């Protein structure tokens, strides 16, 4: 309790653009108001995700997505009211992705009051690959937009 907000970056930095969540989170360090917690999760275990936002009134999740958009495209979704659009898949190199964790939390009644999801379109998810250029730019854009959102009254 006590957190105003939490930003959760999801993804495995060993798997190319799946590391975009961690990258965005890194860029937010020192740029968020007091009372905002930054949590990095390398996978989207539903229990870990729910624990990460427990007690926070609002949560922002940033993750790689695959939706058919050009790599690096950033999209924001309001996930508190409705599931992500069907064409948007949050990428996981595990059996359950962040989208599944969010929907699991919805069913269990464990969503925060406000939940925004920033998806950054990924391109390469190969083992050992770095972040591709367009996606690194997407991480910077997502971080800037999240910082603005958190600073807004």
């Amino acid at each position, binding site marked *: 309790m006590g957190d105003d907000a939490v930003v959760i970056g999801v993804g*495995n930095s*060993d*798997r190319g653009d799946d590391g975009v969540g961690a990258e965005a989170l890194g860029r937010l360090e020192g740029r968020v108001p007091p009372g905002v917690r930054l949590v990095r999760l*390398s*996978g989207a*275990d*539903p*229990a*870990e995700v*729910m*624990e990460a936002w427990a007690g926070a009134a609002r949560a922002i999740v940033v993750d790689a997505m695959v939706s058919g958009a050009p790599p690096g495209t950033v999209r924001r979704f309001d996930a508190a009211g409705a599931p992500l659009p069907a064409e948007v898949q949050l990428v*996981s*190199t*595990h*059996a*359950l992705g962040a989208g*599944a964790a969010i*929907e*699991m939390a919805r*069913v*269990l009644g464990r969503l925060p009051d406000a939940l925004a999801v920033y998806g950054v379109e990924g391109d390469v*998810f190969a*083992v*050992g690959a770095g972040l591709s250029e367009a996606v690194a730019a997407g991480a910077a854009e997502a971080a800037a937009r999240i910082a603005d959102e958190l600073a807004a009254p």
Partner: protein
Amino acid sequence: MSTPSKPETRTISVDYLARVEGEGSLKARVRDGKVEITEFGIFEPPRFYEAFLRGRRFGDAPDITARICGICPIAYQMSSVHAMEDILGVRMDGALRELRRLIYCGEWIESHVLHAFMLHLPDFLGYQSAIHMAADHRDAVEKALRLKKIGNDIVALLGGREIHPVNVKVGGWYKVPTKKQLEEMVPNLEWALDAATWAVEFTAGLPFPEVEQDYEYVSVCHPDEYPYNEGRLVSNKGIDVPASEWNQVFEEVHVARSNALQSKVRDRGSYHVGPLARYSLNFEKLSPRVQRLAAAVGLGPTCFNPFKSIVVRCLETVHAVEEALRLIDTYERPTRPDVPLVVKAGEGHGATEAPRGMLYHRYRLDDEGYILDAQIAPPTAQSQMSIEDDLRVVLEASLDLPDDDLQWRLEQTVRNYDPCISCATHFLKVEIDRG
């Protein structure tokens, strides 16, 4: 009545199967009511790693191979460090050895609970996914999520990170925990013991197709312990060799449909690794509590029904929780986290029990400790032929089912193995061609 019935000409094709790890394909062909082929192919093998390992230092192997799989990184670390320690002539004893069992307990708990409840249980209860299932089985899902997380916590505490742990090294550990750190997990583990016991009772009450297969079960077997890191390779059909003879007993064959090499027992054929094999070959080494629990839910000391693997995973989860509690209770922090190593050339072997079955590693080092070659036989590749055998038997027994139900049953058959096609996309193409 007198006209012969028309041959069936149905084809079922599904492009997406969730709830398996990795990229593979499943194909079945039925002609005039007769099963012609059942194929389970894997597109994404860890062969890349074998090439990637060549020329690297021996100490890099645990970190590199841990990245093969996000679900069972500990297994890859354990098989690689034990193979390297085999070459360098060191053995883990005392607390360093016990900590390796403890981290493996954590991986078994998280992997077994994830598979049993999030991936496999929806098959039995008729839900498309765990999310759909959660609406009607909220308590069960909540319990399973908490139980799995307790496994994550063990891996995160000992491994440093829960997905790709970095704390295990050849010769021991980089850092070892304090007794107090471990004891902080005890209340959760005590809760987990009850929760895992409940999981056994819950899954034992599911409806199981009546299928029994004459498997050749293979697992690591230790004289005194339920196997994790150490023991001979034993089967119920006469294999009993040290891990160093893996290549004398088994061979890896390439089949056109699959990028992964399939393993077989030389001159014999398919074999089965995983919870059912471990259980059936090591029943008497399970804790008395687990043995009693198995009997209470109607499971004998061996089990040859692949669908009951879900119950055995839960039994092994109880065992892992009990073992974790025991290891924490007796733990005394070692004075140093590792043993000294002297680099030398040679060949070494490591076979340990990943949650989904025996994982074999072999390495050859030069005299400066650089890797000359590496061989990795993952459990899913080892069970691949057994999966195909099961598909054939299940398909033959289920031909009267409508296509949707038949496809469901075949997917369930594959998921009995908790296949970890490892680190690929999440895509299994299912195709049933009825001619």
